[in-house]
């Protein structure tokens, strides 16, 4: 079983973040810090700057410093296994945030406490399902992928592609990476819209690229929401507002505010409760039908 956690007044908690180069990660870090401060815990925070290897080293330095528990947002499924195992060996419980590790190599409840997060594949799937229902004859899709090789990019692509192909009648005319960034997403969209003037749907793996795509569509003299449907994942404030404005057709939420749930789970574990292997985040879905009412709740 995973190492136990003693019940204490206050804790020294480690949070190994994978990177801080996008609004989503920044919101996640903020949420963790705020919650730790609220509870009066000491937070040891590291940033792996996008390197799985460095993240393992970061976790090791937390182990060396003798933290009580480690929150780990693993950069990747497989390379973080050694970190999980090292913590287990050192008797420090690990709680995974937003991405899981390879289930063949490590198991929740045995090697680490649990995984808290959404399902990236499912997010892509929900976008595709919405599109299949609300396409209104639109069928030619440009897909703006996240950073090549990253797991959200792979999973969001997998979920979407499989579902939309199964639905039939749709064609993904181009699928290229926009690096999860607004500027790159815009440039790629600009180019792809030139090469595929007949495209009428753009599916972006995150809000930033979707907003970039909107400006590319406008520059090409077309109207987002009318000529071209834009779909996105993340559901931040700006994107939800865009849904209200009609420029984005639909967006799946992927809420970065992990703080409350993470520390609550930790408290439950300290009390000795059994923790389910996957603490699922419930993600909202915004489209024209509900965006206005729900926009206040977007992060």
């Amino acid at each position, binding site marked *: 079983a995973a190492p136990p956690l003693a019940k204490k007044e206050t804790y*020294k908690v480690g949070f190994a*973040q994978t*990177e*801080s180069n996008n609004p989503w990660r920044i919101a996640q*870090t903020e949420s963790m*810090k705020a919650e730790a401060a609220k509870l009066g815990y*000491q*937070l*040891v*925070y*590291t*940033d792996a*700057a*996008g*390197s*799985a*290897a*460095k993240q*393992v*080293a*970061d976790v*090791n*330095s*937390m*182990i*060396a*410093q*003798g*933290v009580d528990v480690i929150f780990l947002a693993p950069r*990747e*499924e*497989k*390379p*973080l*296994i*050694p970190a999980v195992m*090292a913590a287990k060996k*050192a008797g420090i419980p690990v709680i995974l945030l937003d991405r899981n590790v*390879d289930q*063949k*190599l490590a198991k929740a409840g045995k090697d680490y406490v649990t995984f808290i997060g959404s399902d990236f594949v499912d997010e892509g799937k929900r976008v595709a399902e919405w599109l299949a229902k609300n396409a209104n004859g639109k069928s030619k899709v440009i897909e703006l992928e996240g*950073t*090549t*090789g*990253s*797991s959200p*990019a*792979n999973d969001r692509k997998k979920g979407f592609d499989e579902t939309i192909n199964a639905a039939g009648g749709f064609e993904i005319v181009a699928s290229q990476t926009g690096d999860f960034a607004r500027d790159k997403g815009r440039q790629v969209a600009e180019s792809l819209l030139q090469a595929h003037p007949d495209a009428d749907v753009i599916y972006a793996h995150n809000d930033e690229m979707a907003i970039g795509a909107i400006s590319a569509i406008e520059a090409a003299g077309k109207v987002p929401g009318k000529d071209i449907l834009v779909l996105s994942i993340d559901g931040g404030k700006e994107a939800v507002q865009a849904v209200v404005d009609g420029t984005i057709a639909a967006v799946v939420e992927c809420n970065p505010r992990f703080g409350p749930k993470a520390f609550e789970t930790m408290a439950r574990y300290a009390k000795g409760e059994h923790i389910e292997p996957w603490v699922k985040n419930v993600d909202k879905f915004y489209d024209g039908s509900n965006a206005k009412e729900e926009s206040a709740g977007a992060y």
Partner: protein
Amino acid sequence: MLTLIKPKSSGDLARMGVLLALAALILFGALRYDNFLSPFNILSFLRYNSMFTLIALGMAFVIITGGIDLSVGGVAACSSVVAAMLSTHSWWAGLAGGIGAGVVAGLINGLVVTKMRIQPFIATLAMMLASYGTALLLADNQSVSVSYDTGFTVIGQDDFLGLPIPAWIANGAYIAGWLVLERLPSGRHILAIGDGEATAGLLGLKVDRTLTIVYLASGALAGLAGVILASQFGAGQPTEGVGWELFAIASVVVGGTLLTGGAGSVGATLAGALLLALAFNILNFENGLGWISLSAYWQSVIRGGFLLVVVILQAKLDSNRKVD
């Protein structure tokens, strides 16, 4: 490393400076943080940073010839994928495959530089792109799991006589590198080429062949780092290695080697790499103290500032450089 002991020129003095800074930083950490000198921290520090010391060694040789190798990070990533894929056959297939991939990349670098006469910066920049591309293609955009059954993970994860195996590997490489540079005639040739390729050619050196071998060696060391990467973290990682080249370049320079070539020290490069790596480790510990919770942003500002201080000190010590 023996050359470090008696300062002969101001260059040696600069190298002594690195050692002093290293010692000061260790002392600082030991006094300030609990568990800083704990065996766990030391061992995991060595295990992880062996990869960087390896590529810094290759980089030192390339820089001594007056070149530069920007491809080391990409090559390491690509090698880690190759190693992971081959590790299912046997541990040595993974090892040989990873190094082999590095050798191929290094050889291509060398040939493009010497035969096509393309500047090292551009040649190796292109190789960086190409090796990431190859890694992603081979790995199908995902990490590739290594085999846990063939003993491949022993290379990166196990210890031997109390020291992590990667640290042994790095030690071996440094001793070999030191012998080549300081004790073999080819070391003199590498240095002379860095002094000026055209001149070296007129002096009768086989410039092209030596340069090709140096780039090949840098590739092989990056390949070895890739093998350790795959073995230590249990996966070949096609997107790892970003920025490693800058770390390696900074290590070499902090070690007192001039980017203009013609001079340099293997031992001081090791000290330079350890110094920079230690700065990361210390930042993590500082965060753990909880006085100031440094955001990632402040960390990069501090790292930049640290580099600045080190190179300015270096420049001050190496007064020789100002003369001309």
